[in-house]
């Protein structure tokens, strides 16, 4: 017997579109940019600039000399990748992922250039004068950041990406899964593997070793 079945989306498309637009205000601009609208592309890049910059600085370091170059690489990569964006996550999250990947590659290139990487980049030390924490706390924080950044160089790309999104940029597991386009369980298992590696790496760092032992 034939039965008429009403699609859950039938008749609700405008409302759905509005909801999606509210959830992702940059989606419409991104769509126009993909269609070849130059102004929309510029608008999109300006709007996403802070997101990209934060991800790039997170991976490279705030005052790393390659920040500007890598930011431009990220924008070019974003423009290239945008038409493959299917809207599975927010546009800003998609951009964040592109920037993370580009910056991790930039960091690996920089590491190859430099045979020895100092435990704390001097450009980060310059930041310490502007902070309210004590120099010892700042140095410890800088070393912790470098432990994670160093780990990103060595981990498999998929794990490194998840670790950067979650631990460095503070995305939840569900957000990280949406950004990377994998099921939540996959994202979580990658995160666990990455955090396990972080724990091993942390044993070599005095300040983090305290955290491993449970000391304040």
């Amino acid at each position: 017997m034939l039965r008429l079945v009403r699609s859950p989306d039938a008749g609700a498309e405008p409302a759905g579109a509005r909801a999606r637009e509210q959830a992702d205000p940059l989606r419409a601009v991104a769509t126009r940019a993909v269609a070849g609208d130059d102004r929309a592309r510029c608008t999109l890049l300006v709007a996403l600039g802070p997101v990209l910059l934060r991800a790039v600085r997170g991976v490279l370091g705030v005052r790393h000399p390659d920040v500007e170059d890598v930011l431009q690489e990220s924008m070019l990569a974003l423009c290239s990748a945008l038409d493959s964006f299917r809207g599975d996550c927010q546009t800003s999250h998609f951009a964040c992922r592109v920037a993370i990947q580009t910056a991790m590659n930039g960091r690996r290139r920089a590491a190859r250039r430099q045979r020895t990487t100092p435990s704390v980049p001097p450009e980060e030390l310059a930041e310490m004068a502007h902070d309210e924490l004590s120099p010892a706390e700042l140095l410890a924080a800088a070393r912790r950041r470098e432990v994670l950044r160093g780990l990103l160089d060595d981990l498999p790309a998929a794990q490194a990406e998840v670790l950067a999104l979650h631990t460095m940029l503070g995305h939840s597991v569900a957000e990280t899964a949406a950004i990377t386009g994998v099921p939540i369980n996959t994202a979580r298992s990658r995160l666990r593997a990455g955090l396990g590696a972080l724990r091993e790496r942390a044993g070599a760092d005095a300040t983090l070793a305290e955290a491993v032992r449970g000391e304040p």
Partner: protein
Amino acid sequence: MTEKRSGHEYDEDLAVLARRQPLVDAERSELEAALAADPTLRIAHEVGRAFDDVAFVRPGDEALIARVVDRTHRSESRAVVARRWRSAAAVAATLLLAAGGAGAYRAGIALRVRRTPAHDIAPTAPRLQARAGMNGHAEASASVAPAAAVASPATQSATQLKEQAMAWTGPHLGSTRATRPSPSARPAFATAGPSEQPPTPTPPATASTPDGDVTAADLFRRAGAARRTGALATASALYEDLQARFPAAEEARLSHVSLGKLLLETGRPQEAEHHFAIYLAGGPGALAAEAAFGRGESFERMGRAREERQAWLELLRDFPESVYAGPARRRITALDDSGLDSPNPPGDVPAGDSANSR
């Protein structure tokens, strides 16, 4: 509200939530319990908070973003023009290929027709008629069947050839699109090194550009790109050009450290020291510790032990907390152990942070 979940997912998300906003008492208690129970979570939380301590937004970011967007836009526009040219070339090649194929096929058929007796062709006529009728060309008659028999396969072949050529050249028609990664293959674009998909055009041997609107930032960027791709001579030339053309620019000052390191890598410590010294003479700067370290390394490579020791002492005096303090102390110790006749009294090495002395 978020449904409470058990296990690591909840704990990890709670830790993330704590970094975003203040927790309510119950959540805070739960987080503390989770952190006490799980060392891995504790480490992740500590490391995450270390990133939160950094001000990722800085004065001048708007100008920086605008500058990079502008450069990206120009670069993309050039890429679009190049893409259009490639598309046009691909279409032209396709048409030539199709026309050539059709011509060759037609010539081959024509030869065969001349050699084929008429009765061999005749049976194909009704089928062609039927097809013509189906296509609404009822006027096609048996009298034109031989011609149709020649023309139709040829036309069909040309169409097929064109379709095949289009299918084959499809990726080239949008070459950039073709290289754009699918979501599953997205990491591929990111793993592409600068030699595969350089962010900027290959830097010229000299920094002079035909348009003449080159900026200090452009030169600095090009030099950096050249350095990354291993074109050290080009990078060196670009840094020198930058310093000559924009001596007052901040990029020019920074470039002294970059050039110094580059010269040091290429075995020219004397020139390297000169550039590090220029940077340091400019007063405090973000790369001053690095420049001081480079200066010490330059003297070490030159074998000028006395100047080297003095350079390390200056580094310890000016940047006692830097990551370079430890190596500087070790180097001074080595120099002293090697019997260097120090002009300074014993104990002239400033004491420093033990963590940095490691």
